[in-house]
């Protein structure tokens, strides 16, 4: 494990992680020292939670592929559980919700053994056909369509979508560049999360016009455009982690920023629909785990298929 840690912090990924830790340290100093009277408790909590998220991610996902499968599987489990706890359910739905949890194990197993065909149809085909059948056996017809759809939607977002991270990490290095799964996942996750932070910072500093007031009142046009431009540039700046040419990196940045925004507001739609502000309190200052991985539910599958189209 020490060897893996040493390998991670030397070379390209090392510089990259160094930048992340420097940014986090700067944020901590900013909210706890320079602006300690002005910054709210929520902002302080949020920066503290970022430390835990980054450390958990490095230890969980970056060191060993097998550990990464369990790590991403756990994230899927926590997200799915948070989602199932928010949505209205009938007691009879307990059975198919149970199968939805079990499906996580198989989905990540298929990722781990790199059985692509099964990985890509397990939830959209097999679970999709099986869950209604199980509902028929229970026979509670009232609310069948709503409830089965809700469960399938959660599976698609939080298991199928997120598990693309796990499959991505198994990708073999692309010829000359030497960049492979670990670098791709790092590149994607850092840009996706920075996109969230940058939308917030741009919005706070120059944001005026609301972009979709009905769904997410704090999001502004300026925040979105600022983050979109910054992420596009950062995607090119960080492209040494990838085999991308500059224009491929530019498109990757635009894809991540745009899709990240959509993922974020789609989860906001869910929360508005149910009538909650935060999805939980697992991550103080952020809310629940859904509030943190919302953008990834969109960026992970899209970025994966972009890579897959270009190189595999």
């Amino acid at each position, binding site marked *: 494990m020490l060897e893996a840690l040493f390998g991670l912090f030397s070379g390209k990924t090392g510089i990259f992680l160094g930048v992340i830790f420097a940014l986090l340290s700067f944020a901590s100093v900013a909210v706890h020292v320079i602006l300690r009277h002005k910054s709210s408790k929520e902002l302080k909590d949020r920066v503290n939670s970022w430390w835990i998220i980054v450390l958990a991610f490095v230890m969980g996902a970056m060191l060993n592929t097998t550990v990464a499968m369990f790590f991403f599987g756990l994230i899927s489990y*926590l997200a799915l*559980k*948070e989602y*199932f*706890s928010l949505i209205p*359910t009938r*007691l009879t739905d*307990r*059975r198919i*919700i*149970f199968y939805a*949890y079990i499906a996580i194990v198989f989905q990540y197993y298929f990722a781990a053994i790199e059985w692509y065909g099964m990985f890509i149809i397990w939830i959209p085909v097999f679970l999709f056909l099986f869950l209604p059948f199980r509902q028929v056996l229970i026979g509670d017809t009232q609310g069948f369509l709503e409830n089965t759809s809700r469960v399938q939607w959660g599976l698609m977002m939080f298991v199928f979508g997120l598990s693309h991270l796990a499959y991505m990490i198994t990708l073999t290095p692309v010829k000359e560049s030497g960049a492979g799964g670990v670098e791709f996942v790092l590149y994607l996750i850092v840009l996706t999360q920075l996109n969230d932070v940058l939308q917030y910072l741009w919005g706070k500093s120059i944001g005026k016009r609301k972009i979709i007031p009905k769904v997410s009142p704090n999001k502004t046009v300026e925040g979105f455009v600022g983050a979109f431009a910054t992420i596009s540039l950062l995607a090119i700046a960080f492209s040494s982690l990838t085999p991308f040419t500059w224009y491929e990196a530019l498109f990757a940045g635009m894809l991540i920023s745009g899709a990240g925004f959509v993922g974020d507001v789609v989860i906001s739609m869910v929360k508005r629909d149910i*009538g*909650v502000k935060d999805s*939980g*309190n*697992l991550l103080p200052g952020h809310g629940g785990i859904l509030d943190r991985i919302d953008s990834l539910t969109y960026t992970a599958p899209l970025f994966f298929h972009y890579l897959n189209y270009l190189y595999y």
Partner: protein
Amino acid sequence: MFKKIFFLLFVRPFVLLVCGVYVRNKEYLPLQGPCIIVANHNSHLDTLVLLSLFPLKIVNKVRPVAAVDYFMQNPWMRWFSQNCIGIIPLDRKPDKKNGHPLQKVYDALHNNEIVIIFPEGSRGEAEELQPFKNGISHLAKEFPHVPVVPVALHGAGKSLPKGEALFVPFVIDVLFGAPVFYDAEKKGDFSAYLQEQIKIQIQRALR
């Protein structure tokens, strides 16, 4: 001793990681006895969730009141209930000869312990509040200086409802209310008052 090990190795990892709890107003969690915790009851998980919220140091001092006819029905259950959970047995059909039915609860409170009571008397239908029994009024009347903390639980009844063996994980909401005293609420029936408090809190836990 068994109780601490049982909670450290099994209950806390299970409740906090596999289920997950969303606790609000944790500042009202009593860390010192004597104190009475009153909660609604939907599942066996309720007791385990409440006990997991206490620091391991004092978990031995927290005693759930539980029915003799269910939890002491055979020697295995009896050993487990007494040593791993630390219940205060309560006879649901008391016999006058055995003294006051709440005597063991009185003893625990005199002993500065934290007592957990589910005044619905049984788990009932999942996520439905049943009328509170009157025992809690008698108890609070006997101990007017002991704080009564109302706690609303939600979600455990979905995870493990009565009569179901299949456990399905859901996040369990726990919402603590401010402590109340018997004297302060003289007017009206105290158990009805608590029931109303918990009903309001459940609504709030549902957001």
